[in-house]
Each structure stands twice: as C-alpha cells, then as structure tokens.
C-alpha cells in the first residue's frame, strides 16, 4: 500500500498555477525522490501534504484515509526554509517542537537524550541556538524532524548546508530510518544522492508531473541504444570501422585502453557493432550505457512538452 496518494491536486495563487492536476504515489517503506527545477511546484505540493495550505482541487490520502489535521503528528517535515528560535536554548527548543507534535514531555526528553548521544551533541543542551554554527543547527533540526518517530518523513533539501562528513551522517540516518520502517520523501537537486538512496522518483516541471516510477525502470526507459566499449588498438581505425550506421558520441584514452561511447542506429544490434569493430581492434569490454538521473533531469526539463510521452 502507498503511504501517500496524491490525486489530481491543483493549486492556484491568483493567476499563477503552482500545481496542475498532480497525481503521484509514495510507496510504503521506501525513499521517494521528488525532483524538479526551482519553481516547479515541489514546495507547493509539500506544503499541501503538510496541510500548511490546502489544494484548490484534488484529493490526498494518507495510508488510505483522506488527509486530516491529526495526521500531522505522523509526518515529520524538514522544510527547505528552516530555522530555529535564536534566543532559545537547544534543549528547550527541541522539547517545544516535540510537544507540538504531540509527544509528552517525558517521552520527548528520553528520546532527545538518545539522539543527542548518537549525534554526540550532548553538551549543546543548554547552549543558545545563536551560539551554534549552521551545520550544528542543521543537525538539531534533523533531530526535531524525526523525534516523534513519524511513519512518513518529508525532507526538503536535507543536505544543503552540510559538509561532506555531516552529509554522510545524515545520509546514513535517512537509510537507517527507512530500514526501521519509515517512508521518506526526499526533495533534492543532488542527483547523485537520488541515484544512491531513492527507490522511486517523480519529476515535476512547470507544475505538472513529467515522469514517475521506480528509479531503475525510469532510467532504463531512457536508454537510447548507447553502448560503451573499451578496446586496445587505434582509435582512428575504430572510428573508420564504424561507418555511417553507428555514431561515435564520445571517446577517451587511458594508457593503452581506449574508451568509446557509440549510439546504434535503429534496426541494428550490439552484435552488428561488434562485427564491425572486431577486425580492427581488440575488444576488452562492452556494456549498455544507462543514463544518469542528471541526464534524465536535464533532458526532461529542457525538452519541449509535446515531445514527452
């Protein structure tokens, strides 16, 4: 079952359409990547899911039930625009935010203690937030997002502002939370981490869903009969051997090994390519090139709408 179903949700701000009949499903116990360029409508959608604003039309179901105010206690939200009360002490602030999510004071304290130990920040409890660095404050914010053990966690650009060490720490925590059974929605521009940790994605552009599904499936959908070959021999003789049936997209040399990325024209197979090449060079390896999320993102966003399927 899906943890969240969004059905034909539209949202208008005056004459500006922020979301246009957006539908998507976030599967249970996975990491769902919500992608899209700036201004595509991601934040509008996330705010609607968090019931900060309401949709103009469409419906949203949380674990099969129509979304209602009580559900906020089961959702953890780390907004892109995030901050803390600067004059408040770290501990007090975490307690306040936890209690707003419905935790009792005693429960919140016990869980905070645990998290502070795990992040090795026990000594920060009585510090004021204004004394913390940006990265430190981000850690505190991450804790307050997940402290009430929400079944569904929405993280909007969770890695921004972290150094590589802390980015890694947060990535591990996200995976740990998923392994413990939470469903996570991740909005980020960092495509490398999308490929690494997301199981599903949806790509929103100009207030519409352009693409969604399991990440492996999406990537293979964008395969274009491009193969990567490595071989020993002359690049020039390889190029000559290709003829007009094959298009050399990219090539490079590494010591005595040559690398080439070749697009095969319609109707031909990788066998045809190999038959051409084998007489001239010694093939070391051949594999199909699967486009990265980065390629797909750029392709979808830059392509005119009508060409999309």
């Amino acid at each position: 079952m899906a943890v969240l179903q969004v059905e034909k949700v539209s949202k208008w701000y005056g004459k500006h359409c922020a979301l246009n009949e957006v539908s998507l499903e976030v599967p249970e116990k996975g990491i769902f990547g919500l992608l899209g360029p700036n201004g595509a409508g991601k934040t509008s959608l996330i705010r609607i899911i968090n019931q900060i604003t309401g949709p103009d039309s469409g419906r949203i179901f949380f674990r099969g039930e129509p979304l209602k105010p009580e559900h906020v206690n089961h959702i953890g939200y780390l907004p892109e625009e995030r901050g803390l009360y600067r004059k408040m002490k770290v501990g007090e602030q975490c307690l306040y935010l936890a209690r707003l999510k419905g935790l009792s004071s005693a429960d919140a304290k016990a869980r905070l203690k645990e998290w502070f130990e795990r992040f090795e920040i026990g000594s920060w409890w009585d510090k004021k937030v204004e004394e913390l660095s940006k990265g430190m404050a981000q850690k505190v914010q991450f804790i307050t997002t997940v402290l009430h053990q929400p079944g569904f966690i929405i993280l909007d650009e969770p890695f921004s502002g972290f150094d590589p060490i802390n980015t890694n720490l947060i990535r591990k925590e996200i995976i740990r939370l998923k392994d413990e059974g939470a469903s996570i929605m991740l909005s980020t521009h960092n495509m490398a981490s999308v490929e690494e940790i997301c199981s599903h994605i949806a790509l929103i552009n100009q207030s519409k869903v352009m693409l969604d599904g399991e990440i492996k499936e999406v990537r293979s959908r964008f395969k274009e009969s491009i193969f990567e070959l490595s071989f020993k021999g002359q690049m020039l003789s390889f190029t000559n051997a290709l003829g007009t049936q094959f298009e050399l997209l990219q090539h490079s040399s590494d010591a005595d090994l040559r690398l080439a990325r070749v697009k095969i024209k319609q109707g031909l197979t990788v066998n045809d390519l190999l038959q051409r090449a084998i007489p001239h060079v010694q093939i070391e390896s051949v594999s199909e090139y699967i486009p990265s999320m980065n390629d797909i993102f750029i392709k979808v966003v830059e392509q005119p709408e009508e060409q999309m399927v």
Partner: protein
Amino acid sequence: MSKTGLVIQREYVSRVKKASFIVMTLLGPVLIAGLMSLGVYLGIKDSSVYNVLVVDLTPSIAADTSDTALRPLFMKRLKDTPQVKFSYTTRGMSNAEFDSSAYSLMLVLREDILSVPQAEMVFRSLPSLKARSYIKSQVEKVIEKEKLALHSIDPDTYQSIRTDLDIMQINASDGEASYQQEQAFVGFAFAVLIYFFIFLYGVQVMRGVMEEKSNRIVEVIISSVRPFQLMMGKIIGVALVGLTQFLLWVILSFILFSALSAFFIPDLMSAGGMAEGMQATQSVIEEQGKDAMNQATLTNIAELILFRINWPLMLGMFIFFFLGGYLLYASLFAAVGAAVDNETDTQQFMLPITIPLVFAFIVSEFALANPGGTSVLWFSIVPLTSPVVMMVRVAMGFEAGTLWQLYVGMAALIAGFLGAVWLAAKIYRVGILMYGKKVNYKELWKWLRFNT
C-alpha cells in the same frame, strides 16, 4: 496541553524570563511610586530653608503713622516662616557677590513697583514652587495694602469686594454636585494607559511574528499547528505578559507607595480612616501656612478618587477595553509582521494602524474639554478608537438613558476585533511563507482572496 496552549506557554515564558521584562517590571513601580511620592513629598514637606535677601529699591517714605522713621515700602513687612526668612537691604548686590554670600535667594523689588508690578528673583538653585508662591503672595499683600492706603480704601471694604466665584456643577437628573471634569481626568489616565499598553504589546507581537519569519522557523511550526493557532497563541501569550506586568506594577506600586508614604508622611497613612487621614493632611497644610483653597481641592480630589468613580465598573471596563483594543490592534500588528521581511519595511503598513490609535488619543484629550461632544460620542463607539475614548466616558459616568452607548461600544469592539482577527489571519497565513517579495497594498489585497 493543546497546541495553542503550548504556543501561549512558550510566548509567555520566553518573554517573562527576559531580563528586560524583569527590569521593566521592577523599575516601573519604582519610577511611578518615586514620582508620586516625590510629588507628595515636594508638595507637603519642603524642608529647605530659604534666606531671602530683599533688595528694596522703593523710595523711603513714612509708611505708617505709628512709625516716625523713614523706611522703604517693604522693610520688615514680609512675614517670616520657619522656612522662608527675609533680610532687607536697600542696596543691590551684583550676581557674583550674591553667589558668594550666605543668602539662598535675592529678591529685587524695583523702585516703581507700585505702578509696574515686576520683580526679579536671583537664585543659585531654583526654589520650590511653594516657596516661590509664598514669596509672591507676601509681596502682593504689601503692595495691595499700600495701594489701599493710597486710595484710602478700607481693607475690610476691599475684602468684601474681592470675589472668588465657586461654581458647583449640579447634575439635573439627581440634583447632586457633579465632578465630571475631574472624573474625566481619571478616565483620561486610564485611556493613556490603554494607549501605551496597546502600542507596547502590539509592537511586541509584530516583532515576534517577524522574528519567526526571518528565522525561518515558522514553516517548521506550522507543519505542527495551524497558522491561526500560532498567531492567536502569540497574541494571547503577549497579552498575558502585559496583564502580568500590569498586575505586578499595581501590586509593587501600592507596596512601594505605601512604604514611601509611611516613611515621609506618617500622619497621613497611619490613621485608619481616610477622614482622619484628610484631617492630618489638613493640619500639615495649615501648619505650613497654605491657604484654604488648596486644602479644599485636595479634599475634593480624594473624595472624587474614592467615591465618585464607580471603581468596579471602571476596572472591569479597563480590562475589557484593554483586551478588546489590544486584540484588535495586536492582530493587525501581527499581519504587518507577517507581510514584511524586515523592520524597515514595516513603516508603510504601520501608519494606517498608528493613525487611528494616535487619533483616539487626541479625541480623548478633546473629551476632557468637552465630554458631551458628538465626536466624542461617535469615537467612543467606533472600535478603532473606542478602547481609548470610552475610558474617559466610563469615568464620567453615563447619564440616564445613555448607558446603551456603552453596550453598543462594547458590542462594536467585539465585532471589531473578530473582524480584525479574521482579516489578519488571512494575511498572516500567506505572508509568513512569502520571502523576498516587496509587498504593497495591492499584494495584500490579493492575499486576502487566496484560497488556502
């Protein structure tokens, strides 16, 4: 605890714990009680002794038939008191000479003082008002007496001619003496209090909203509570801070004032009843040679403060109009805080909120001069000005058949703050999530129509 309750708690506790709140709460009464006691102290107990050198430049004449020696007009004719002692000379001193002399004041009476009633008083430190008016009245008496003699008017005749008209204001409905004017002053004091409290705490609400917006914590919070709950929690939390401060001020001021008064005017406070207290005050005043006029006024004011004003109504209405006015203005202030990104942008939106408030203050000043005016009636009913203006009217009391105006004013205020809260909530929930946009009135109007 409900989520709104948690917000109220945070707003309240974080403000009450602030050093500035504690300092203000402690210093406020010290200042108020200090000023009040100082007033009483200066008025009743001015223990300074003034040695006045009277430089009498008037020509020597035989002023009195019983006295054969020639002497100037004022010589030995000003009455000494324990605190004001006169010495006489006919030769003036330079200011420098005076400065190094033992005298505390030098009173220079010009030669033609009978025709040009002017004199100069040279001082090192400004004498008390009481000492000045005593000296003035003494000089006047001598001049008057001299003029009476010059015109051969019998002093008794003169006294019988002198008229000091005392008009009693009698209210036709109950035939009792009216002190509306004085009562209006008491009401004005409350109006000023409401005016300041609305400003002080309304701006605090605005700052709080802006802080949450510029800290970017607001989106985290409103993923747990509704924007309306957050806004109302803040407004109510700050109101409780205001009431706490007010209550502490009243209690501390009372304790301090009692302590200071007991110390400086033991007679006045030790006596149980106010009547005895008044008598004690009278004796203090008489002893000091004050005239009967002030004494009567003082009695009237005391009576006025104690009996003329309907205190339970007054305090009840104060709480009502303070809270009503505060809720109305604070929610507007909250909307302004939500609409802007930084303090400098608040100016354009602050103006339409400040103007009615300042205007209310001005109208209530008019109400002092003309309490029954039509404008006072209307502005005591209109919600934006009623919290300030109505206080003056409540203090004066309502004539038979006009009490409905109070009820209408109260109902209008309730409707007014509900309307203001509704309006503010609409702007608030859009504004808090709007960053980096220069907001104008057109934009605000658009927000009002957003569907959220």
